[in-house]
């Protein structure tokens, strides 16, 4: 069974548009991370959120951790072609050291 569900799976938008990617679960996580992966490369960490309700901003990217620590969202403002890639969320539980990954959202930003 899939622990973390991401939506949408695929997203194709025009440069300059805004978008939101969702990461949902019925489980509670101690922390949640967002990664971006480009073809032929491994995932690269963008942000870690650790407190329920926490909001973090990274330039045009805004990350939010749900109050109940079960979900998260990634909002991109004025998307650029350089934002194209596979976005992955990954959650860590309160016990153990492994991360549970979502299936990813493939984003294409068209110039």
């Amino acid at each position, binding site marked *: 069974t*899939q622990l*973390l569900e991401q939506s949408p799976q695929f997203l194709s938008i025009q440069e300059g548009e805004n978008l939101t990617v969702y990461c949902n679960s019925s489980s509670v996580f*101690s*922390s949640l*991370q967002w*990664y971006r992966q480009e073809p*032929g*490369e*491994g*995932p*690269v*960490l963008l942000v*870690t959120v*650790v407190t329920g309700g926490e909001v973090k901003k990274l330039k045009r990217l805004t990350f939010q951790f749900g109050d109940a620590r079960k979900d998260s969202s990634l909002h991109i403002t004025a998307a650029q072609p350089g934002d194209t890639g596979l976005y*992955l969320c*990954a959650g*860590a539980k309160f016990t*153990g*050291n*492994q*991360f*549970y*990954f*979502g*299936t*990813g959202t493939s984003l294409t930003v068209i110039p």
Partner: protein
Amino acid sequence: EAGVTQFPSHSVIEKGQTVTLRCDPISGHDNLYWYRRVMGKEIKFLLHFVKESKQDESGMPNNRFLAERTGGTYSTLKVQPAELEDSGVYFCASSQQRGRGKLFFGSGTQLSVL
């Protein structure tokens, strides 16, 4: 500073053969993880080393998979004998800090079992 390196980047083998994947973590990182992504599925945890000790191998699919990290430096993951369902991308990641620590991923090894 060199990142996490994995070798080979691609491997194509026949069912029943043996393949060994290698991962060199970032120098000084005690924590080393193996993950796998099967096509169409999410990246899944295989196991976690702290130095040379296996901390958690709950994600290893079966006894055809053997991971080692002798000396606490590089790690190998051997699949013997390989089956069709073992195809996928195998990622290695390392971190200094356990738990909420930042994971640095390698580029992965694309394994194709024919």
